[in-house]
């Protein structure tokens, strides 16, 4: 059984509406609907909250939905994040070298600075995403 069907079944067993559950988990009703239709997966924290609400273990709640587990693994794939960080830092380095060479042309310099800033913000975003 997919996690969506499983979540719907358990919610109905506990006589909760999508609105009720959405309120408890602090998400929108549409989000609950998306989970139940397997359009998206709940994050690990929300699944933990649901396991508390339904008094079920995570094992019972997930019931072998490997797809969702894979989506979590992708979300916390630190190897991929490290690769992305390395690429961004290389672009950063190139932009910095370019800035040192072409700093006489204001527009080239501004463009390179913008690239530099985007890379730095992206690096920061990747790190914050992991927290």
């Amino acid at each position, binding site marked *: 059984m997919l996690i969506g069907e499983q979540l719907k079944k358990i919610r109905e067993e506990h006589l909760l509406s999508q609105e009720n559950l959405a309120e408890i988990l602090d998400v929108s009703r549409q989000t609950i609907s998306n989970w139940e239709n397997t359009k998206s997966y709940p994050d690990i924290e929300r699944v933990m909250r649901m396991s508390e609400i339904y008094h079920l273990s995570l094992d019972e709640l997930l019931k072998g939905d490997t797809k969702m587990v894979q989506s979590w693994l992708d979300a916390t794939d630190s190897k991929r994040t490290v690769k992305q960080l390395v690429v961004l830092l290389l672009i950063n380095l190139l932009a910095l070298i370019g800035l040192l060479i072409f700093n006489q042309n204001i527009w080239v310099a501004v463009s390179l600075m913008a690239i530099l800033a985007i890379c730095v913000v992206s690096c920061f*975003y990747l790190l*914050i995403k992991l*927290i």
Partner: protein
Amino acid sequence: MNLIVLIFILILMILAVFVVAYLLWRLINLDATARNIAHPKLLSFLVAGTQNGIGIFTYLALRRGHDIQAPLDNPKLREKLKISVLLSYVLLMLLTICLLVIILKY
């Protein structure tokens, strides 16, 4: 005139640095508390006070093995803080660009 603008941007930048550091402190504090890591306030202060993201890297390595305990967590605040810290960081970057443009131009 340019000097006044320069000083104004510099002051805004300093403020933005403090805002980023404060929001990062709150985010790390929340995460460390949810993971039951010892001395979350001190740890988050050290992480938020470092530069080049090395503090965040160290924290990510340190928190391994400390799972989130759902009752201690606050997902709504966590998401809010993540967005706030990113937005303030973007603002800081924009101010930095403005400052550099002014320095390069004059």
